[in-house]
């Protein structure tokens, strides 16, 4: 079975930093419609810090690396993004503890741990118009590919597609719960910022 190495994981996070920093302003704009317009800024703050502290991050294994990324995010991102992305990375870190490589099954488990951590922290579920609406389909797609013993590349392609579709669908949701619920009608026709960001990140990672 194909596996992902620790270096590949690190390379992926480094690429995520670039993508998130590059998209700082567009991500803010996505959050302006029904949010307070700071999503891109909040998120970039953490990933800029990951770049800055890159040499000091733990690199013993995949778990230690992801956990230390999570700590940086938890320290430097405020707002809702800090705890959501921070606990996602720390959750993945726990799942990938002591691992030097990940196969597709393990990747699916690790991403599921991110979803669980986010849900534990924020209490949202599928359909609440949050980034989970892109992340959960992405994780489900990876798990299906793993069950089907797919190769990595097509699995990633399917997963990115699922994320983008999930994000797209958030347009149709009038937020009924949580942060966007007050603006109600005003949130319809606009996708959720966090969900869209997941789609964008997944897609752009494929191109690297």
């Amino acid at each position, binding site marked *: 079975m194909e596996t992902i190495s620790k270096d590949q994981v690190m390379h992926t996070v480094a690429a995520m930093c670039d993508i998130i920093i590059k998209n700082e302003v567009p991500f803010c704009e996505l959050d302006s419609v029904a949010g307070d317009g700071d999503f891109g800024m909040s998120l970039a703050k953490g990933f800029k810090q990951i770049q800055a502290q890159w040499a000091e991050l733990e690199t013993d294994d995949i778990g230690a690396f992801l956990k230390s990324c999570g700590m940086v995010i938890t*320290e*430097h991102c405020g707002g809702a993004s800090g705890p959501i992305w921070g606990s996602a990375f720390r959750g993945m870190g726990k799942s990938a503890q002591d691992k030097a490589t990940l196969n597709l099954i393990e990747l699916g488990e690790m991403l599921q741990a991110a979803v669980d951590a986010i849900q534990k922290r924020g209490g949202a579920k599928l359909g609440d118009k949050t980034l989970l609406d892109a992340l959960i389909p992405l994780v489900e797609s990876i798990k299906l590919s793993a069950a089907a013993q797919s190769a990595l590349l097509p699995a990633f392609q399917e997963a990115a597609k699922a994320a983008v579709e999930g994000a797209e669908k958030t347009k149709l949701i009038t937020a009924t719960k949580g942060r966007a619920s007050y603006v109600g009608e005003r949130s319809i026709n606009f996708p959720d910022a966090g969900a869209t960001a997941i789609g964008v990140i997944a897609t752009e990672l494929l191109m690297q």
Partner: protein
Amino acid sequence: MKKLINTPETLVVEMCEGMVKAHPEHLAFNAKHKIVTRKQPNKQKVSLISGGGSGHEPAHAGFVGKGMLDAAVCGDVFASPSTIQVYNAILQTQSEAGTLLIVKNYSGDCMNFDAAAEMAEEDDDIKVARVYVNDDVAVKDSLYTVGRRGVAGTILVHKIAGAAAEEGRDLAGVKAVAEKTIANVRSMGFALTSCTVPAKGSPTFTLADDEIEFGVGIHGEPGIVREKLTSATDLAYRLVEAICADLPFVAGDEVALLVNGFGGTPLQELYLFNLAVSHELEARELKIHRTLVGNYMTAIDMAGASVTLLRLDDELKALLDAPADTPALKV
């Protein structure tokens, strides 16, 4: 944007340092984690921590001091501080009696304060209790919250919980009286102008020359209705009406009144507005035990005001009247 600042990036740290410079004998500042604490901590009593996004000055750092908070954690303007910031505040003010976090009910704040509390409990065996202030009667759910927003009533929670902690109550006792305060406090406000977030540099919303946003939040979030500016007397009537109906406050109740400015409204207008509000309360036979008028929980430079009522019993009265010595409130 016309502001007396250097750069938006350095604003929060410069503001906190300027505050500590003004109160060097009372306050200390941890610049790494943007935590303002008492200079002389009292490690025997329950530690009280609050905070949130900056832009609500003097909240929250202005209420650090004897009889109120032990620490205020300062986020960027209108953004919750990070989990690690809050966690460090818990560590820094750790007390044998435990720690109470007073959180305004916004999802970012709740998640970060909650996560920090869990960290301190799990990793450091610190007892950490939490209360969530949600006094705004204007809207049930808003842009940034699940449930009602926490606004100016938070100051009264600081005051009462602070007095309870100072008199030596245990964590459960301080938490209980904070929750009792939250259960009895209600607020509502309106804006005459928008605020301007420094990093954005332009007003958050636009009102016509004769328009107000009724029911506005302390981040310039929309309220109930956008309408024509009316008289102070009329605005007092409508805020008091909405607030009284909500709890409800009824004839004979004793209350504390907070007439709060949002930052851009001069004291001249706030005092005048206080007269109108007092008349409304008197007409409803509410007895005003204590009044605070001023800029307590602001929305940067927004013009406008809010009214907060807290229903009092003997316990709350005694705690409200207990001494406090902080930059922004001395009793």
